[in-house]
């Protein structure tokens, strides 16, 4: 009898141990094109995400969750980007950007992702939010005071300044 009870216990324990782990699908029950986004990690004090889809798409509810929660969000975060029917301007891919916001609405981190999606496809995407984008213009891309210089990618040389100060002031 003891062996029977032991066997049953092992069966029950195994079943509970090896039961499946269900990952919720944010796009479930949506019939049109949808991107199921999983944000695996990000800044710890994230209270909201601001989602922006580039390429001419817009949303009246770019923030998720809609209301600011009392506690920071717990990663991983899952949400859906749901599209209406694609029009002719759709190029088969979209780029979306996610910004992590703190309690005051300041950006803590950002990530951008391009996803190919057609018709009514469902795509699952995982991203991690990194630091905010550096929007400052790189040093070598800043316009020189000599606007006549054709190749902006070429770093300025000391002579360039001398040339710019040429008496005629015209293009070289």
């Amino acid at each position, binding site marked *: 009898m003891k062996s029977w009870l032991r066997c049953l216990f092992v069966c029950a324990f195994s079943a509970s141990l090896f039961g499946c782990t269900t990952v919720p699908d944010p796009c479930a029950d949506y019939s049109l094109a949808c991107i199921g986004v999983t944000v695996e990690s990000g800044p710890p004090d994230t209270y909201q995400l601001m989602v922006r889809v580039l390429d001419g798409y817009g949303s009246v509810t770019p923030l998720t969750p*809609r209301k600011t929660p009392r506690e920071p969000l*717990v990663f991983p975060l899952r949400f859906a980007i749901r599209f209406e029917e694609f029009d002719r301007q759709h190029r088969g891919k979209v780029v979306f950007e996610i910004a992590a916001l703190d309690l005051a609405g300041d950006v803590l981190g950002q990530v951008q992702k391009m996803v190919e999606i057609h018709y009514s496809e469902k795509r699952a995407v995982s991203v991690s939010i990194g630091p905010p984008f550096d929007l400052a213009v790189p040093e070598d891309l800043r316009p020189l005071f000599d606007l006549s210089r054709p190749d902006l990618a070429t770093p300025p040389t000391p002579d360039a300044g001398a040339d710019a100060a040429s008496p005629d002031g015209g293009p070289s």
Partner: protein
Amino acid sequence: MVSARVGLSCGSLGVLCPCWAAAVLVTALACSVGAAETAAPSDAVKQQVRGLIREAGQKMDRGDLAGAAAQLEQARALWNEPTLDYNLGTVYGDLGQHSDAAHALARFLKHADRSVVTAERIDDAEKRLKDYERTLGRLSVRASGFSGAAEPSLFLDGTFRSKLPSGVLPPPGFLFTTPGSHGLRVSLAGSREYAVTVETRSGELRQVDLELFPVSSSEATLFNEPEKTPSQPEGTPYYKRWWFWTAVAGGTAIVLGVVGAAAAGSFDRTAPGSILDPIDVAR
């Protein structure tokens, strides 16, 4: 005639009797007087031994060697008299039981009172014993691993041969064996039985050292007969008991329930994390 060759005499009496019965009776009683190592039996025992010896002599006269040996063994059990050993040695020799004969002669030579036993008889016993030592094998056993008070039992070829006080054979300290293979077994209550096959050769003394290990509790459970409760019918196999099939049915139902619940996803878990509101986009 066997009895003629095995005529008995004892010590100073120097009696050689043609009649076995008279000879054994006289010599046994005469030798008992001089036997220092044997305790004096009561008159009733002496009377009984006399009767047994007389019967042995009569059986010898009739050629019933086995019967005579049995009578003499019975007499020896009552009265451990060395002369009986000499007689047993000669009878066993005639029976072809040479190892038994050698043992009896060895006992005789060890315990016989040389002052009362004739030199001729001693010489004869020594000569016979030397022959046996040359033609038979000898087996010595030394057992250890038990308390000193215990006396393991030694079996040779399935027959009890001797106790092992202090772990060794009583004097002369070995068993005579016919040359060849023998099953040796030593047992003691509370210890694992020791069993081995030994090969003995003519004239060879084979020493066997062994250790008796105590029986563990699990082994004791294995070997001990389990207690039977009155509610268990004798001889009914477990699969014919009501509780066995009840347990099988119950167990099967539980297993099926668990498997069904697992298939239905009852044991599934939701991955950790937060579900956020969807973002609806359009041009």
